[in-house]
């Protein structure tokens, strides 16, 4: 008699068979869940990046037009520099090795712009809830 024909064999393998099928199902469900969660996180993150960069571009562009006559040359030059950086920034390609460097450079320049113009920088803040020395 073949091993597979043995009814007791199926019983003795019941535990490992159940484990294997459960494992496969778990992998499939996990993949689905991770894809959904990853997609949601991706949307949230990209939304925040695009919103921040859009805000910065809008403020600097408007400042160049409206304040050109009243402001110092230094600030106008800085606003132009920020707009140029954003124009060159490949916002869609988050896999670019310089993506984070370029984004941080824009944010740093905007912080300097806010400081020079006494604007309050909004929504660019880090979390600061725990104690730190």
């Amino acid at each position, binding site marked *: 008699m073949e091993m597979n024909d043995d009814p007791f064999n199926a019983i003795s393998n019941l535990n490992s068979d159940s484990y294997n099928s459960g494992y496969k199902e778990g992998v499939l469900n996990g993949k689905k869940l991770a894809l959904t969660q990853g997609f949601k996180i991706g949307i949230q993150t990209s939304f925040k990046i695009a919103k921040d960069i859009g805000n910065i571009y809008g403020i600097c562009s408007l400042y160049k037009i409206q304040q050109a006559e009243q402001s110092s040359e230094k600030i106008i030059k800085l606003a132009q520099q920020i707009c140029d950086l954003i124009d060159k920034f490949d916002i869609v390609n988050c896999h670019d090795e310089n993506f984070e460097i370029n984004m*941080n450079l824009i944010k*740093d*320049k905007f*912080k*300097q712009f806010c400081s020079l113009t006494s604007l309050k920088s909004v929504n660019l803040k880090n979390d*600061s809830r725990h104690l730190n020395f």
Partner: protein
Amino acid sequence: MLKLVTTLAGHDDMVWCVAWNPKGNLLASCGGDHSVRIWSQKGQNGEEANQWTCRAKLSDGHSRTIRWVSWSPCGKKLATASFDTTIIIWKQKNDFDFEIIANLEGHENEVKCTAWSIDGSFLASCSRDRSVWVWDVSEDEEYECSSVLTSHSQDVKHVLWNPHKNILVSSSYDNSIKMYQQDVDDWINTETLESHQSTVWSCDYNPEGTRLISCSDDKTLKLWKEDPEKKNKSSWSCYSTISGFHNRTIYSVKWSKTNNLIATASADNSIHIFKENESSDANEPTLLLLEHKENAHCQDCNCIDWNPVQNNLLASCSDDGTVKIWKFDE
């Protein structure tokens, strides 16, 4: 031998930083009680020379812990860094009277340190928000942000200027030290010094500004020097690691500009004093221990500073709420 001159009590909370003014006759301290205290000797001679008193208490500026205090090179201004995210510039009106002349905002989290460039034309600040800010200081006391640098990946603990050139150095929780120089109208990161295994708490230049010593949470001191032959990005390299002296984090290191001695303050409550070994034998240690003061304070020693004029006089401060003044006799 390290001899205690006096213990200065007055702060109502831990003391984070001590700093001598350029003339070496005033000592500023700051801490968790949101105040800066200015201390000086009662008199120049006799018994009064060893008696110190609090001449001023600056407490109407910051709303949270004052983490750092630094004197401008002219000795007339103080810059304080606070956990309330601001930097305040105080100007000396007369001997012990200070007024606020600027409140610098921009950092998003706690400000950890401030430092004036040697000619007083720049002020640097660093913060838990991972950034280093360089402020232009104009002759009419205007403070304008010159650059925001986010080269570090974690909070920045300390900033320092080269004693002869406008080169800025920052130390960070990301275990690295970075150097910056002005490039046309911006500042750029020119060097990254990596060797420490944990947070770099502070560093200091030798009197000539050609070498650097750093201290860390990894309980080591590291000596760095520039190799001008190296043409690549990192021409600074670590040439010596000094370990086995402190058994907890080393928070502060100061290289005296008058006697070339190196003092360290640590979370193990001790103060150590070293001098460079002048031997050229590569098998001999780079630094020789001159003094090991155990239990210099009852709790963590947070900061130490050599007097810039009076040889061998140094100040320390601690979580125990005191400031101590020490005299070192070789």
